[in-house]
């Protein structure tokens, strides 16, 4: 009996201990047979549209935005192969490429189950994403590794950087395939994914960047000719979070706070009266770049008044930068050192004005605050908003078309028409109403080049476009080697500027043919403050450094002079 008890005890232990070692993932899938049907392929493709794969350039790498007296590795020339965002851009982009390659390679698994057309559409989607990703790599890093298949480690270590033109041709092929096989639009029951128009437009963007004017022009034209896209009627409203899925968006990604994809960290853009920090501001360089309503730069136009610098300016100026003494987010905005109180429109009371440096040390150093896209809903969700992430919009297609034609010397009416469409929309008028806006009429290539460049700067401020424009135009070494100016400190400002009746700009700054603004005269007179110094190392910075790790362990060649 005792033995029986013993045996049964051991028996129980033996029973519970007979577990298996063949354990499979519980909350993840297995990739071995994936992409063999419609649902699986679509899930794989969906992943290519996540926000992390669509990096955009930063405006704090340019002369359009300043973050108090702080610089970034791009504008203080400290960029190298160890800089954090260099590594994430590089590795995330290649992740997107590998996943796109993986879909393209494994589509054969579904060959029996899907029609040729469906398969081509899926392949088109994947190739669109791949081409976009390679475009970004090519334009930023220049000398990159190109692969169209999933690499094994051995193969990978044997790879070398490809010739830039070869990569460009591969990108074109992908975009062409995508344009031929993607829909031009999606029905309201379908998920809106990449379109043929997006493929043309993105192709135009990389072609332009690579100075392949011909291809850029043709692709932009193809996009225009689709007739799918048009300019959103109201420039200022286009960037509000409430303007969703506009007709102008050629390629973009939606955001949603409740679905967990949002744009955050916006406190820096909000004036201090409204609870923000007012830390990231439009530069004076940008402010001065807006033309006057006569179509002339401020140093040439008789309409410009340095005491009232917002007057008679292109409407995009006040749509992008908060005009002084106008209501903004329920407060009157006024950085003037004597405006120690301002009106709160919610309570109609006068309150301490934290947007002047007299009251708040860290109010905007140059008096300017962003207006573009900013609305009351920016304050609601912990400084997150859900505005569309517009990656390429129709105005860009029009201006790319014009720029390509100008650079080719192929100047015809369509060039002026394209620019005028964009400009007229800014003025809220029809392009044909040429008396109501400064329509472009010149056919002089040098004039046009100057016009297209200032037009782009006005149109796309704070849209992450300026950096690559500066790189393409080879103007970075000039524009990014200038000091950043701001107002004097309150006490000096009052005695040297305000009391002398020189508020806001003591003088009209001069602007050269490249659009670079010169404040040195005012600075040498002690009328403005130097906030910080921008530095751009032209010997190397037109290309980004290859990540050090790839140079040291994968055998890639570092870009020159890093």
């Amino acid at each position, binding site marked *: 009996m005792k033995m029986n008890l013993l045996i049964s005890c051991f028996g129980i*232990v033996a029973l519970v201990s007979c577990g298996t070692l063949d*354990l499979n993932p519980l909350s993840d899938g297995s990739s071995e047979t994936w992409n063999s049907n419609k649902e699986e392929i679509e*899930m794989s493709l969906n992943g290519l549209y996540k926000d992390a794969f669509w990096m955009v350039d930063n405006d704090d790498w340019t002369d359009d935005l300043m973050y108090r007296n702080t610089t970034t590795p791009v504008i203080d020339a400290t960029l190298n192969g160890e800089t954090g965002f260099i590594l994430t851009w590089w590795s995330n982009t290649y992740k997107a490429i590998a996943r796109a390659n993986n879909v393209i390679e494994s589509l054969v698994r579904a060959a029996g189950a899907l029609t040729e057309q469906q398969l081509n559409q899926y392949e088109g989607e994947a190739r669109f994403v791949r081409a976009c990703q390679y475009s970004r790599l090519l334009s930023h890093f220049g000398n990159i590794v190109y692969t169209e298949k999933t690499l094994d480690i051995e193969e990978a270590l044997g790879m070398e950087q490809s010739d830039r033109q070869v990569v460009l041709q591969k990108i074109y092929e992908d975009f062409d395939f995508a344009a031929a096989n993607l829909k031009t639009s999606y029905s309201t029951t379908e998920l809106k994914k990449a379109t043929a128009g997006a493929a043309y437009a993105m192709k135009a963007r990389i072609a332009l960047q690579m100075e392949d004017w011909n291809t850029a022009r043709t692709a932009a034209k193809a996009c225009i000719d689709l007739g799918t896209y048009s300019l959103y009627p109201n420039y200022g409203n286009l960037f509000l979070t409430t303007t969703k899925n506009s007709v102008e968006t050629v390629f973009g990604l939606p955001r949603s706070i409740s679905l967990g994809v949002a744009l955050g960290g916006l406190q820096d853009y909000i004036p201090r009266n409204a609870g923000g920090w007012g830390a990231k501001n439009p530069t004076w360089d940008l402010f001065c770049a807006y033309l006057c309503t006569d179509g002339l730069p401020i140093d040439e136009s008789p309409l410009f008044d340095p005491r009232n610098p917002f007057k008679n300016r292109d409407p995009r100026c006040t749509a992008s930068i908060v005009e002084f003494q106008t209501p903004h987010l329920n407060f009157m905005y006024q950085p003037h050192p004597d405006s120690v109180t301002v009106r709160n429109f919610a309570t109609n009371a006068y309150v301490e004005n934290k947007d002047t440096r007299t009251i708040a040390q860290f109010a905007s150093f140059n008096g300017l605050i962003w207006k573009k896209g900013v609305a009351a809903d920016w304050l609601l969700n912990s400084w997150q908003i859900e505005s569309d992430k517009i990656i390429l919009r129709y105005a860009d297609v029009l201006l790319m078309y014009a720029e390509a034609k100008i650079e080719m010397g192929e100047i015809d009416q369509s060039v002026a028409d394209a620019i005028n469409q964009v400009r007229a929309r800014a003025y809220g008028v029809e392009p044909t109403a040429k008396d109501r806006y400064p329509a472009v009429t010149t056919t002089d290539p040098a004039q046009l080049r100057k016009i297209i460049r200032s037009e782009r700067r006005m149109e796309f401020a704070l849209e992450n476009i300026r950096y690559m424009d500066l790189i393409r135009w080879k103007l970075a070494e000039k524009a990014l080697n200038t000091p950043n100016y701001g107002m004097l400190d309150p006490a000096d400002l009052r005695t040297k500027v305000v009391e002398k009746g020189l508020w806001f700009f003591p003088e009209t700054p001069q602007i050269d043919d490249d659009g670079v603004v010169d404040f040195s005269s005012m600075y040498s007179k002690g009328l403005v403050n130097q906030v910080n110094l921008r530095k751009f190392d032209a010997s190397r910075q037109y290309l980004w450094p290859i990540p050090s790790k790839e*140079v040291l362990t994968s055998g890639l060649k570092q870009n020159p002079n890093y």
Partner: protein
Amino acid sequence: MKYTLIQVFIVMTFAGISLARPADAQDLLNQKVNLSAENKSMQAIFQQIETQLAIKFTYRSKLIPSGKKFNVTVKNETLNHVLDQLLTPLSIRYKIIGQQIVLSKQPKEETSMLPLPSIRIKLVDFAVKGTVTDESGQGLPGVSVVLKGTQQGTITNTEGVYTLNVPDASNSILVFSFVGYTSQEHLVNRRSALDVALLTDNKALEEVVVVGYGTQQKKDITGAVASVQGDELTQRKTTQISQALQGTMPGVMVTRTNNAPGATANIRIRGITTITDAGSNPLIILDGVPIDDINSINPNDVESISVLKDAASASIYGSRAAAGVILVTTKRAKKGQLSMDYSIEYGLEKPTQMPEYVDAGGYMRLVNELRWNDNANNSNEYPIYAKDLIDNYTQLNGENPDLYPITNWQSLIMKNSAPRKSHLLSLSAAGQFIRTRVSLAYDKTDALYDNRYFERLTTRINNDITVNKYLSASVDINFRRENYEQPNISPFYLMGIAAPVYAAEWSDGRIGAGKDGDNIYAQLKHGGFDRTNKNQIGGKIGLDFTPIDGLKISGVFSPFLNLNKQKIFKTKIPYTAATDPNIISGYMNGFSETSLAENRNDNYRYTAQFLVNYGKQIHNHSFNLLGGYEFFYAFNENLGASRGQYILNNYPYLNIGPLDLRNNSGSAWENAYRSWFGRAMYNYKEKYLLQANVRFDGSSRFAKDYRWGSFPSFSAGWVLSEESFLQGGTPWLSFLKLRASWGSLGNERIGNYPYQAILNFENSSLFYQGNNVVSAQAAAQWQYAIRNISWETTQSTDFGIDAHFLNERLRFSGDYYVKTTKDMLLALEIPDYVGFDNPDQNTGKMHTKGWEFQVGYTDKAGDFGYSVSFNLSDFKSRMGDLGGTEFIGDSIKIQGSEYNEWYGYVSEGLFQTAREVTDLPKLNASVREGDVRYRDISGPDGIPDGKISPEYDRVLLGGSLPRLMYGFNATLNYKNWDFSFVVQGVGKQNSRLTADMIQPLRSNWGTFASILDGNSYSHYNTAEQNLGARYPRYSYTSASNNYTMSDYWLINGRYLRIKNINLGYNVPQLLAEKVRIKGLRLYASVTDLWTLNKFPKGWDPEMSSLTYPITATYVLGASVKF
């Protein structure tokens, strides 16, 4: 041996027969006899009796074997007892006829029934009685008292009292022994009262050391095993065991970075043998069963801890033993024990060091200098703070503290000290069949700032049940609950960088803005809480079946269940304008909405074991064989749910939050091992010792065909002191053993499904569907999978020596070892352009060499006992061929480097002049005089290229790990007092001065450490002053140049720390007994009191970042025995 009813009947019958003897004969037999005979013949003994009692023995001479000699000592015993005792063994019966005793041969049938112990009296009739006590004078129950050279003996009762009859009142020797104490031998020497005080001795050779799946006598061990007693750990007064292990054993490296309530430490045994952190953690075995975390055990429940350091001792745990094995044995009730102990402790924790920062004026002055530097030292030397403001700041502060705040963040947030307390109750009761120990402990440690504490309740019930002679069982149950409560932010980083010119509170007591909502004081005080509750229920049932002597079959089943939950309730903190409490100026950074996140983790593990153990001694040959089977399974499931933008701040429950900002998540994993193992031990005369182990392990982490690994080991020991050539001639040498071992160990702790190409699901892609935004599920393979991934093996060779001198007073033990890891599992660094996360693969080699020794001396002079010990160890881990992989960062793992060797630029001081900046190689165009200058080492063509670049100018800068780790321990006791003193430290380390220590203007607004002011390069300095400047110029732009990894920031991080001082007093027993308690002990202890080091002022050598500080602990305690 058993007594049947028949036997009892016979006993009664014979008793009756004795009573039936004639009265005169009975009188004769009742006469008392005294005998003392040594080595005498029976005839001679008879003669002694004849002379005393005037009687005559009559017998045939053939009856008594003439050659036989006897030892007899009899004192005042009756004749019949003496005769029974003397004659029964010789099968002789006696008859009284008149005054004659007639002896004759016992008939056959009677013989078989005769030897009945109950009526046999013993010749050993000298009764010795005494009390065995421990050092504190407490009676020790369960001590074995044995007559030397025999099996005869007894054990002490609950009071520590024993009684034993000895055969020879003068020359008998009693051996007193008890686990954990030095055995003592005492000559009886006619003393009927013999009291003994046993001394604890961990290092005694007779000590039994817990080894894998069993125990072994220390003198028989052939591997490298270190052990420490629980008492030594509890003396350290840390709540977590891992922290208490620091410096206790050579070769056990314990590192910690903070002393936050409930903080743990990192344990590494004999260096590092693999890449991944998980793989470097030693395997923790609690009472024979693997557990996840050594800190889940209350230090007070620990009887002893053994660390298996070399392959030979650890390879019985094969697969997971590569990083060493820590065996924890919990306390159990001892035989005959009946006691209740209660201890209470109260203590305080104070930071050992806190960094210091410049005052408000200094901050403004230095910020101006920094900005001025970054503006190329232009005309404006007051770019941020006007000169007037700085000059008059104190006065302005007096006039309007809201506009001109001066805040000492540290004194505002930090308390002077953090209290801690502990209660511990333990009960032991041992009966004939059940022995039980129950403990209940409660600990609470507060933090150095408000709203944070750690609280723990542990209970453990250990039962030993004797079912019958063949079967015994152990049934253990433990329960633990831990509560971690803390604010949603740790203050140390922000407190460390917060500049003094921002307001924590407005002058009327409202929350101040801080730096634009970075007000760590308000965030800490009003930002909600992060509360974690951990519950663990664990148990073990073990059955031991001993069918025949020496054979033991055991079965063990041990489940552990963990239920953890976390509630993170983050509340919004609005702050109002200084001038108007009705205007909300904003919300604290990161606290602009109220949100709740709840997490549940539910996991369980179970272990099942079968063991067969057989030991046999044949003459001088001793064998021990062990075979076993083990199965382990672990399952883990996580669940998370959250909602955001709560309207109310005081309902931390999910259903109060808005529907559209809810989120949830869930995931799970499992893994399992199956193992077969065996061990054979052999020794000849305890002189030549041999041991072999092998273990076969299968792991679910590998594909079917690559799943099994085998891990053999061999070890041998030679006890030279047992050899005749060393015996006698060397009285100063008491023990000498040489050991050598070789073995192979495994590791596979790298992900749960590394061979499978896992597809991860995501929901972060959004699309328009019409004009609605929808989330579409996405799937992607993240990691490259290598199908044939299998075990990593570490081969380890160890040479050791144990030598004891001067009658065990001086003890030395030393080891040298070499370890080589092959097929190392590492996340193979593949080119990023492959597009997958780095895959796990078997590649790479690594070599570790090290040595360690421990030396101790114990002695006693009268009432004064003392013991000192010192241990020292060192190792170096060097990376072999890593299959082309390089782990590059500030610390690096590449072929030929040390493990995590520093990697960076070689500095050449600071650029002193603008000319130098122009002429010499530099990292980028923003570098200016006052920045750190680096050496141009190479370039793309292999020669210096006139530029400093991260690709070609970084080199190995020396190992980052601590070297020459040591511990020194002294204990003294005098009468009722005891005192101990522990020193611990690191003899050599390349330590980096981190950004947290020396970089100004962190986060672009932070303050300046006091050590910088006056010691930095400055345009206000003379050239000579700048030549001597320790720190570079203040700059934000050049921070990436100046504070990047270079030897400029490496210092010698060696330190010596007074780890612990402990003083105890045992209230004299007589005094204690008056208040009806058995004993009372009072003690005081100080931990981490003082260090000697070269770190900058304000930094503890064990801290490298702005985190919870290392604290010194002051504890007072009392312990009562009932």
